[in-house]
């Protein structure tokens, strides 16, 4: 170990062309700073004895007392080797001299010395003073938990507003009764659920200005999240119902099937179904039809949900016929104008066949928008 460091320094200086400062050496080799300084001196001395004409350069640190204009000053300087004696002579009393750095090339400027030390220190920020001569008992970093405690104390001091946890604790008691009154409009089932929802909301909110506002916010928040949570509910519900009905309709054997299939309108399930339904039940006087209706109810979470869904509703044909007869003529007229003479017959046929479909669709279109709604206008 004793002589290994010489080889190490040799490697750093000659092979890697580094500027070896005492601090860098001490951090790299893990030795006391004074040892590092002595190592550098030893290395320098030995190499100079071995080969004369070596190209090693060194910088020294000189510190001492100096008196200028009657006042005493302590001076610390980093000097090149050639300036060493000169600087020493200017000082009244030289206190310390040691090797600062060793490098291959001659340094014109002391800038690189700083960057070498900077890199070395940056890597070892946590224990940068491990190899120094001075130990300070007070300079022990606080552990993470202790630091957090200290910071919390400071934050408490800085906070001027009192915490409103007390308010939120008191709030649920009066507010529980109030929701019962408001929600009682809808159903009894909703009330206990609403309380649960209310409390959930309150635990999330920490700073509310007053109990009253807590309640209001609590109420509104029940509505919105519930609605947002299930935006597709209504559409899903409708689709399910539609598909069910198509299956039931297509099972019916002797409805006039072909015209509907051949209808030029795009294969819209929604239209097919009322069409087929209409065709099938043409003969009857009283029938049931599917009507788009809106149902409002409270679901199990206490949220109000409005759904649009098809529900069967019975109605008589006579009511419908008057509407259907008036509409197709208008429709065929419009079709004639739009399509031209050649296709008149076709369109007429289609128009006639479409008429009941259109009528039915028109009926439906008042309640549900469909593509047939375009032909309804007179």
């Amino acid at each position: 170990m004793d002589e290994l460091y010489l080889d190490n320094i040799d490697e750093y200086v000659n092979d890697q062309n580094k500027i070896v400062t005492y601090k860098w050496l001490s951090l790299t080799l893990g030795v006391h700073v004074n040892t590092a300084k002595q190592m550098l001196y030893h290395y320098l001395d030995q190499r100079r004895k071995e080969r004369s004409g070596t190209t090693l350069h060194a910088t020294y640190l000189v510190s001492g007392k100096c008196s200028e204009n009657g006042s005493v000053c302590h001076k610390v300087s980093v000097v090149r080797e050639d300036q060493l004696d000169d600087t020493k002579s200017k000082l009244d009393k030289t206190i310390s001299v040691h090797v600062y750095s060793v490098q291959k090339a001659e340094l014109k400027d002391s800038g690189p010395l700083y960057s070498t030390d900077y890199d070395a220190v940056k890597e070892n920020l946590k224990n940068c003073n491990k190899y120094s001569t001075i130990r300070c008992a007070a300079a022990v970093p606080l552990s993470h938990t202790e630091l957090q405690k200290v910071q919390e104390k400071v934050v408490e001091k800085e906070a001027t507003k009192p915490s409103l946890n007390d308010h939120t604790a008191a709030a649920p008691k009066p507010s529980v009764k109030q929701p019962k009154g408001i929600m009682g409009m809808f159903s009894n089932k909703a009330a206990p659920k609403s309380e649960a929802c209310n409390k959930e909301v309150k635990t999330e909110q920490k700073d509310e200005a007053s109990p009253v506002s807590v309640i209001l916010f609590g109420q509104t928040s029940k509505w919105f999240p519930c609605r947002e949570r299930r935006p597709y509910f209504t559409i899903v519900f409708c689709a399910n119902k539609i598909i069910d009905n198509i299956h039931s309709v297509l099972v019916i054997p002797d409805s006039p099937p072909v015209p509907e299939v051949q209808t030029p309108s795009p294969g819209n399930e929604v239209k097919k179904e009322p069409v087929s339904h209409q065709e099938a039940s043409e003969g009857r006087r009283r029938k049931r039809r599917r009507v788009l209706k809106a149902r409002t109810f409270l679901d199990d979470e206490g949220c109000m949900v409005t759904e649009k869904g098809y529900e069967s509703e019975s109605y008589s044909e006579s009511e419908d016929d008057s509407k259907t007869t008036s509409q197709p003529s208008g429709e065929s007229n419009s079709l004639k104008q739009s399509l031209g003479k050649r296709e008149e017959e076709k369109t007429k046929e289609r128009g006639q066949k479409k008429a009941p479909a259109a009528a039915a669709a028109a009926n439906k279109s008042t309640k549900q928008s469909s593509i047939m709604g375009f032909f309804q206008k007179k």
Partner: protein
Amino acid sequence: MFSDITEQKETLLAPPGTERPVFSRDERTYSGCSEGFGLGERSFQRQYAHMYAARLMQMRGILKDRAEQKWGTDIPIKKLCDLQMGEQCVIVGTIFKHMELQPSILKEISEEHNLLPQPPRAKYISQSDELILEDELQRIKLEGKIETAKFVTGSVIAIMGAEKNDGKFTVEDYCFADLPPQAPREPLNSDRFVLLASGLGLGGSGADSMLGLQLLIDMVTGHLGDLGEQSGAASISHVLLAGNLLSQSTQDKDSTTKAKYLTKKTQAGSVEAIRLLDELLVQLVASVPVDVMPGEYDPTNYTLPQQSLHRCMFPLSVPYPTLQLVTNPYQAVMDGVRFLGTSGQNVSDIVKYSNIDDHLEILENTMRLRHLAPTAPDTLGCYPFYQQDPFIMAECPHVYFSGNAPAYQSKRIKGPEGQDVLLVAIPEFSSTQTACLVNLRTLECEPISFSTFSTEDDDEEMNISH
């Protein structure tokens, strides 16, 4: 002196020995007393007149006593409203200096004058300045044996003289509140030092000063020097950084002048500088207690009293209990020695509005006036205090300092009741590479300078000049 206690030891120009010396740093007793400079809830609704009223009210009693001591009890002390023509009396009030060249926002924005904004000048004094004394109700012009250029607005003094026919008060003599009472300090057994440094100027373009700064840190932490010097460094029990840790160039606000699309991705210069400061501080705090005061160019509020830098800016250094982020101005008692000082804004403001250039002389003047910053709030930004003026010195410090002076200066002054104060003008490190060491036992100050070599010739840097 520091250089006296460090012994000469030539051990390091030798092959490695076996000794691994370790010195332990002296512990010191410390208590901070700058609660008066901390601001809690800040309200800027108030006018500054309250501050002047509080100042006069607090100082009037003190000045009456001083006037009686100086001129005897025969001469009556009168208020301005009770003045009688020709009668010799003493009046107590606040000085107001009327300066033509003083930048006035009203003149700038007034359209009838059609004036361009005045460019910043080194001094705003001129021959035509006038001194006016104001008390609670009236004001009166002063003339006579009073040197206009030496006084600044906001000083509270007592004047002896008489009112002459033309409505002006002819001054025969004046006196200040002088030094406040000083608590006696217990002498220490051993030499203990406090290092004072200011104007580190990080983030600036001068890279030369970085090695000097590194040498300073190495010396304080015990890396540098021989055994004698290292044992001497172990007796440095405290480090005080008095402002301007960041350089003025970090204050350039490109965002106000350049187009937004050019400056969108650029960081403020102070971000990198603060990171650098944190890395420097962590080396220091791991070895010695450090107090960090903010200065003119540091990221904290502009008005006095400047609040401490926030601990979130120093993630590496904050875990160490040795780091203390303190206000500007700052007051503390270390080992029985009371330190009071600022980062230099008060002194440089007085330099602008009087004919005195010597920082040390200004320090002495403010000490004699018993007020840290007399020009606040007139020309020096200040918080509108309401019922009390925290800049009035209640107790006399043992060491009174101000940072960012152009050169190192120190002086010992004596008070009328035997007070003994060391005045220190801490030089700016980035330009002078000099810091100060105060010996707590003897109350003497010594400069310590660092030098490096460069491509220019090896001239003597760090000339300590008076």
